[in-house]
């Protein structure tokens, strides 16, 4: 070939550990440590056992963060997940109350999630000109609407026979089952996003959708699978949320989509697509969950907790911009 100049290109990654430590994920580990130490110092009841006991309610939302990160990495969004949680939870309680065996109820809940996810995915794939924000805003209203119709006047349902839910809400020793599931799912999502073709394709779509398409990435397929996964994990979230509350009502899952997005964005996953790491999302989710539990134990008002998390979020988004600006100014000052 024409390569006659004898120039060589280096193909060995360098300073891998240095880069890892200096990354946003490294910073998140430090933040997590600070949060744990501070909470422990402030509250005597902030023990491992207590934190783990309170975790399941919050951990259910982490199921939403994982596929949400995929969707954000593609530059898309799904704000209907809270409503899927509500619809799936409602149907699950109805199934249990109708005397169906618990595994059937679980299948119904999962099926609901899959169908809702498939509806979102199908609309977004078939009508690429519609922004996913608007599509899922529509389905957000529709899914919750269906749940509200089913819940009727009372607006809530309690599982009459909650044995099944109680069983999956149990702990192994002091660690709740859901904790293991979250860690396993998280590990799978990290592996998919870093080591597998699907993860690379997600990033390609989020970075430059046209180039990805021209390069043979099946953009529609990847989009559809991601939305269906989102639906399935919304159902998982519904299962474990019901296992913590033994029922559903019209406000079940309200705001969950925003919590999931907040966890991902605080973890460095850009909502414009193509940026961020799964591990960052998981770390930030633990930061937020541990902080919430700690502030809750100090009887901090839940509105104030939201305020603090909001400020953290904006700070996390601003930080890279600020540091870029500072280093740009420095360069200017030197020249």
């Amino acid at each position, binding site marked *: 070939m024409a390569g006659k100049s004898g120039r*060589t290109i280096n*193909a060995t990654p360098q300073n891998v550990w240095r880069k890892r430590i200096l990354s946003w994920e490294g910073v998140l580990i430090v933040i997590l440590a600070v949060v744990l130490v501070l909470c422990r110092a402030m509250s005597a009841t902030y023990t491992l056992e207590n934190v783990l006991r309170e975790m399941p309610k919050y951990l259910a939302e982490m199921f939403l963060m994982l596929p949400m990160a995929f969707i954000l990495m593609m530059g898309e969004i799904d704000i209907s997940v809270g409503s899927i949680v509500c619809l799936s939870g409602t149907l699950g309680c109805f199934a249990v109350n109708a005397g169906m065996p618990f595994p059937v109820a679980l299948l119904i809940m999962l099926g609901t999630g899959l169908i809702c996810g498939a509806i979102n995915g199908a609309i977004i794939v078939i009508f690429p000109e519609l922004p996913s924000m608007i599509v899922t805003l529509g389905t957000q209203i529709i899914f919750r609407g269906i749940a509200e119709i089913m819940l009727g006047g009372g607006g809530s349902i309690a599982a009459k026979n909650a044995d099944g839910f109680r069983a999956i809400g149990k702990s192994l020793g002091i660690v709740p089952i859901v904790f293991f599931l979250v860690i396993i799912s998280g590990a799978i999502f990290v592996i998919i996003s870093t080591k597998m073709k699907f993860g690379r394709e997600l990033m390609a779509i989020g970075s*430059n959708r046209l180039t990805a398409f*021209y390069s043979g990435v099946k953009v529609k397929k990847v989009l559809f699978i991601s939305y269906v996964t989102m639906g399935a994990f919304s159902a998982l979230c519904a299962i474990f949320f019901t296992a913590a509350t033994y029922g559903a009502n019209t406000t079940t899952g309200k705001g969950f989509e925003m919590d999931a997005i907040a966890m991902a964005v605080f973890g460095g996953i850009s909502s414009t697509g193509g940026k961020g790491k799964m591990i960052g999302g998981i770390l930030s989710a633990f930061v937020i969950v541990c902080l919430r539990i700690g502030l809750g134990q100090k009887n901090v008002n839940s509105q104030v907790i939201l305020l603090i998390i909001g400020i953290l979020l904006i700070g996390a988004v601003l930080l890279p911009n600020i540091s870029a600006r500072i280093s740009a100014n420095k360069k200017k000052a030197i020249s």
Partner: protein
Amino acid sequence: MSEYVLELKGITKIFPGVKALNNVQFQLKKGEIHALMGENGAGKSTFIKVITGVHQAEEGEMYLDGTKVDFKGPGDAQAAGIAAVYQHPTSYPDLSVTENIFMNHEIKKGGVLQWKQMNREAQVYLDQLEADFKPTAEMGTLSVAQQQMVEIAKAISTHARIIILDEPTASLTANESEKLYKIVEKLRDDGVSIIFISHRFEDMYRLASRVTVFRDSQYIGTYDVDKITNADLIKAMVGREISDMYPKVAVEPGEEVLRIENFSRLGYFKDVSLSVRAGEIVGLTGLVGAGRTEVMEAVCGITAKNSGTVFLNQKEVHVKNPTDAADLGIILLPEDRQKTGLIMSWGLGRNVTLPIMKKMRNGLFINEKKENELGKKFLEEVDTKAVTVFDPASSLSGGNQQKVVVAKALAQDNMKVVIMDEPTKGVDVGAKAEIYAIMSDLAKQGYAIIMISSEMPEILGMSDRIYVMCNGRITAELDAKEATQEIILEHSMEKTEKKEAVR
């Protein structure tokens, strides 16, 4: 008072790495229609943008009625009575005709918009242009020709003394063009000076009294239209002699690899048939917008077609999407490297392996070491100027980015046909020669190459055979030995009537 209403002297405009205009001059008399001609990329559009204040020239002076002016932005040019009408009207499709005409210079009384008065005045302008639509019509519902009329009405409403028309007839039918000619002549008779940019000689002969030619960002000359011959004008436009920057090695073409038959897509191209053999470089040329890229994107399954068959090694194949094309070994190197060729924020290695991730796996997982090694191998093969395979694509120059695109194609080891769309667009001269060397090498290795290009020297210098397209049809198939710039230019500027047939 100066003889010229507008005069520009020694204008130089530099974009990062490129001199878009090099010491050009221009003189416009009051009440004349002045044609501005040149090949694609000769600098016409940049020049217009300097006049309208969109770009500021690095060097040179501009005089209006003999007074030196210095436009800081489009607003200044507008205030000085200069208006431009573009090929694709830059209007607000959801607003009414009146709103479009009075955008940014609305009639107000005490801060309240006077719609009745504006509608009335808009009607007066439209009547002047003999328009057949109402000022209350929605812009988006009008045809391109009608939208252009609105743009002209807008120019009149700002009391423009100089109106620039940038390829106004490019998307018009013969009848619509004739109507536009009449409007332009009427404007001239009213004392407006007009700069008319066009690729069509018929436009120039019909309207202009003088013509200025640009080539390679330089001023070539200004001629009286009735004193210059067609041949002289073409020579002025394409002019340069072909140097030996084209290291084409003679290769005896082998078997036919790809043949397409009767490719049609409504509104884009019709009945396009062509073929390419192993070791052959086929040039596909014509003016921008002739439908070359569209045909090739349809071959690769990127855009739809209404009809047409693809034969690969004499066997009919079906391509529904880019993956099918890649699986068959038909690889497109897109024209726009930043939008469709590369992921600019990604490392070079990952860009190269993006289409072949399937093969980069050990079982379920991507083997990054293998991936980096492969990226290194192909990037070195095309001699990319990069330090590591992790350098982001955005850090490279245009020429080196093009090399990465080539490496990406080479990595697909079943490649048989390479379709290169404007392979040297935005590439500097030195890197151009390197890319030609790579192309020549590929041909020697037996790949079938289709090169889409608007650049005559590269078409003539690199092709074995040349297809010329015009208005969505193939108008000529030439052997490289018999082809000249004049013949190609003639075939790429056929008469307008054919356009009707495609649409």
